[in-house]
């Protein structure tokens, strides 16, 4: 199973933390990043703070994606033994998790709102769990393919 995050999104908390980070904490910009900062007429320090904030948030988003993937895996075991999760991608542009399953040697693709997953983990809402379970039932019965 592979998980990933597409796009750079930064939480306010991580942005604020990066703004107050000491110069020693800032990442060293790669030559292409230095070139981009130069072309945009943006200071390297500001660009590095932006990169630091993005890096911190990305780790958290990856952790959320992994947590959701593991939760989904557990749900799947109870519903469709033998079906595997191939990929779970958090697409930050659309605010959706994009999931590809492998079932009967065929890929099955579906998407889930990130807000719904946040409700599940942050609120532990029974409703969110039921809705996600319902989505998976629909996917398994209709076989939306990639």
């Amino acid at each position, binding site marked *: *199973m592979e998980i990933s995050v*597409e796009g*750079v999104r930064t939480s306010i908390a991580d942005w604020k933390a990066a703004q107050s980070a000491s110069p020693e904490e800032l990442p060293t910009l790669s030559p292409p990043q230095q070139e981009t900062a130069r072309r945009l007429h943006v200071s390297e320090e500001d*660009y590095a703070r932006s990169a630091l904030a993005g890096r911190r948030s990305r780790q958290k988003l990856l952790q959320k994606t*992994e947590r959701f993937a593991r939760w989904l895996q557990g749900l799947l075991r109870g519903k469709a033994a033998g079906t595997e999760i191939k990929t779970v991608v958090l697409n930050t542009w659309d605010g959706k998790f994009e999931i590809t399953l492998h079932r009967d040697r065929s890929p099955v693709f579906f998407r889930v709102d990130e807000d719904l997953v946040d409700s599940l983990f942050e609120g532990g809402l029974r409703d969110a769990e039921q809705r996600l379970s319902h989505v998976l039932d629909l996917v398994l019965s209709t076989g939306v393919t990639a």
Partner: protein
Amino acid sequence: MTVAQRTVAVILNDDGRSVLQLAECSIPESGAVLMYVQDVDDLGLWVRVRRADAEHILLVRWEYVLTLDFPAEEAEAVGLRP
């Protein structure tokens, strides 16, 4: 697609640059202004600016924005055991 919660390089027109200067924001003499966009709506970009007392939210109206630039393709993949 949303640009909320992203740091973006904003290229402003001359009016936009004047408005930001009126709002006592320090901006470079030329080129882009790097901004953290907290939210976006029909009015424009709601960005965070640091003031002496606290962080403030500032509206940059769409009519002042010539273009936005931010990295698109950065992605990180991790393999997990089933």
